[in-house]
């Protein structure tokens, strides 16, 4: 499998042109304060800052036009390296690059370019505004890519489905010694429980009722324990199956501290049966049972906050996660797996639904990210020892309209409905914030 690489990302909205990154780079790379020699260059006036920095292209033009073989893309790090001993100073590489990622350092008399400081960029931590980020998510891809995909290829999910992504990642991570319970919902709907006598997973999977998922899985886990076999008990359930009719068995298992990982894929409704509302469907959203017409304008109640309810079970581990924040998701998966060895672990993943929420299938990550950036959902984790804390800052959220306008299910909203949602977002944030304060007090 091809490799993925870490990369430096720039958020122009956060940049104020202070030039600290350039100073850091000039220091790191030339030992001077001459920002003209920095390999990262910030341009623009007052506001709207722009960036010239090597993008470490996958198919680099500078490398192809170098007549001296002085430039090379490193297959392991992805960094395009410059070999001073081969360079003949012809400047052709500066003709190749469309973004000035390699340019003449007039003082040195040679071209120079970013080498990501061997994976430890000096410029990134130097930025006082968080406008530069070193994105290392690629490490996950590289690592996970080597693990076995335990979900069969060619499943019947909708195009661009987030749940499939989540399934593949989760099963890869938990590994083959797992028993999976998937109650009615999209997960079995797309084929995990299989067709014609073959399962869609390469691990034992069963299809409990909506009502008894946690109970059945608890029994199976106990039986394995009794015969002395260590298996991972995993449930992947929809929000409907967990928060509505399945809640009783979920709550019971959590209260008893059954040793399992219960993952909820929250796509805010009963999507595979025709997009009916669930208790996790947010206020104002269109579903087939909260229609939009002359009088009705989507759901009239607010969503139930299931993960917070699970916190009140004092589970061994509770967290919320999003596929737009993969590193965070993986950390939580690891912790949840560990916690499930001795107690009940609950992982609630916010999972946009391209079909039911009505947005283009290529925008899943964007919608998932906007949900977090607006604080429509918040990423946090809880353990009885450390209490609750955010894993992604809730400061400076975008207005919730940035999230709402990304999809069709909110298109009809009247201004007062939007106002209601924004108010709820702030209220929820305050509510969870108070719980984090509580945690600090002990």
């Amino acid at each position, binding site marked *: 499998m091809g490799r993925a690489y870490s990369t430096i990302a720039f958020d122009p909205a956060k940049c104020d042109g202070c030039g600290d990154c350039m100073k850091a780079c000039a220091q790191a790379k030339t030992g001077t304060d001459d920002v003209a020699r920095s390999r990262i260059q910030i*341009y623009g006036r007052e506001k709207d800052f722009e960036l*010239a920095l090597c993008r470490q292209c996958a198919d680099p033009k500078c490398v*192809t036009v170098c*007549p001296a073989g002085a430039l090379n893309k490193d297959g392991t790090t992805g960094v395009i390296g410059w070999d001073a001993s081969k360079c003949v100073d012809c400047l052709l590489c500066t*003709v190749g690059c469309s973004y*000035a990622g390699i*340019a003449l350092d007039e003082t040195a008399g040679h071209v120079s370019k970013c080498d990501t400081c061997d994976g430890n960029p000096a410029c990134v931590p130097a930025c006082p505004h968080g406008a530069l980020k070193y994105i290392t998510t690629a490490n996950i891809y590289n690592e996970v890519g080597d693990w076995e995909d335990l979900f069969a290829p060619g499943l019947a999910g909708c195009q661009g489905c987030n749940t499939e992504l989540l399934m593949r990642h989760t099963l890869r991570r938990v590994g083959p010694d797992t028993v999976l319970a998937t109650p009615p919902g999209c997960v079995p709907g797309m084929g995990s429980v299989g067709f014609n006598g073959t399962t869609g997973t390469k691990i034992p999977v069963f299809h409990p009722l909506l009502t008894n998922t946690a109970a059945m899985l608890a029994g199976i886990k106990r039986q394995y324990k009794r015969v002395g076999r260590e298996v991972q008990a995993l449930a992947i359930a929809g929000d409907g199956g967990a928060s509505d009719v399945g809640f009783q068995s979920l709550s019971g298992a959590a209260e008893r501290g059954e040793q399992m990982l219960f993952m909820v894929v929250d796509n805010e409704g009963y999507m595979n049966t025709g997009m009916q509302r669930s208790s996790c469907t947010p206020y104002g959203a269109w579903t087939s049972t909260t229609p939009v017409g002359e009088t009705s304008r989507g759901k009239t109640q607010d969503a139930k906050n299931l993960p917070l309810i699970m916190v009140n079970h004092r589970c061994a581990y509770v967290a919320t996660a999003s596929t737009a924040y993969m590193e965070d998701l993986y950390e939580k998966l690891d912790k949840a797996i560990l916690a499930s060895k001795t107690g009940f672990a609950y992982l609630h993943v916010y999972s946009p639904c391209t079909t039911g929420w009505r947005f283009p299938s290529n925008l899943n990550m964007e919608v998932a990210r906007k949900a977090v950036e607006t604080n429509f959902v918040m990423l946090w984790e809880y353990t009885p020892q450390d209490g609750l804390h955010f894993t992604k800052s809730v400061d400076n959220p975008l207005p919730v309209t940035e999230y709402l306008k990304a999809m069709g299910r909110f298109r009809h909203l009247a201004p007062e409905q939007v106002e209601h949602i924004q108010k709820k977002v702030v209220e929820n944030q305050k509510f969870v914030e108070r719980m984090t304060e509580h945690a600090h007090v002990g």
Partner: protein
Amino acid sequence: MDRAIEHTKYLIAGSSHAALEAINAIRMHDPEGSLTVVTRDSHLPYSPTVLPYVVSGKSAPARIFLRDEDFFARNKVSYRPESALKVLHADENTAELADGSSIVYEKLLLATGASPAIPPIPGIDTVSFHVLRTLDDALKLRGAIGASKQAVVLGAGLVGMHAAENLVKAGASVTIVEMSDQLTSGYFDKVAADMIEQAFRDAGAKIMTGSRVVRLEPTAAGAKLTLENGTTLEADLLLVATGVKPEMAYLNGSGVEHQQGIVVDDRMQTTVANVWAAGDCAQARGFFTGTPMMNAILPDATIQGRVAGMAMAGDPGIQDYAGGVPLNTYHFFGRHAISVGSSKVPEGGEVVTRFDEQTGRYLKAIFGADGCLSGIFGVNEFFDGGVMAQLILRRIDLTALRERFVANPLAVGREIMSQTWR
């Protein structure tokens, strides 16, 4: 079909920039199809552009190769040096090689580049002279350069100028003889050329522009040159660098249309089925003129090679060739000159120049009537050639930014390209 004749899906003639990019493009789409590279050269691939530095000793000959054996093995390419294409039988999809063998191809790329054009000066066949296009040329010249006291370089294009600089640095007395009135014509304007000329004079070179050589005769030390005005020059080393001509003699009788070069369309296809051409041997559309022209520069060879490779492999991601834009960077005596685009002022267009005596920075920018950049030229004024080329190719209207742009093309150009990225 004769069973002894080899068969290959893709055949590429030539092993330099255009060929290497075509290999990449083909392998991106078709990892398996049999691919054979036949080349006249006896070495692994290298660039003609690096050769002046082999001559000067800056580049070790063993370290200039752009690919190694392993690259060809990994990419399942059969690499055949010293097997030049001799005759193309396009009607039979067959290439006849210099070593006597033949190869039947499904798709053929002609990436045979160019060779030095030798001017028809009376007596030229009686004297020995150097040229600079292949590694063997460079090694020969490098061997001769140390012993030379009196060198003459014929032609003041970039190849000649590069070599002249090396000769000067090696301690020879050097005379550059150029037919036109200025150095580096076609690359740089008179102002820039004068700056380049001054640098050469300061270093002790003699420059004779507007001078035509009318006769060459052998002498004990080397050659005697007679100029049109009667002046004579003695040379113990003569380098002929009066331009290049495309390598395409193998086309005779093949039916492939060729004028100044091999005529190709915007997908680098020649006028004949299953045959493509790219690089210095191809005559492809010019960006400014829209008509076929020669644009014998390295960056264009790579772009054309890529388009040809994608077309040959049937890659649906292919985009038409946007047309050739002249692009040159030139490093001389620690200074640099860059030229991007056309030096012709378009109708209704405007030229802006600035020159700073103190720093020796010179800039000239040419804008079309539509406000778009059509050419930019600088000496000791660094800007990113790649950024400028994109401003031209994307026809970005600079009217509102013109003043800032001329004051600082580097910053403003980068700003614009950064915006287009997002």
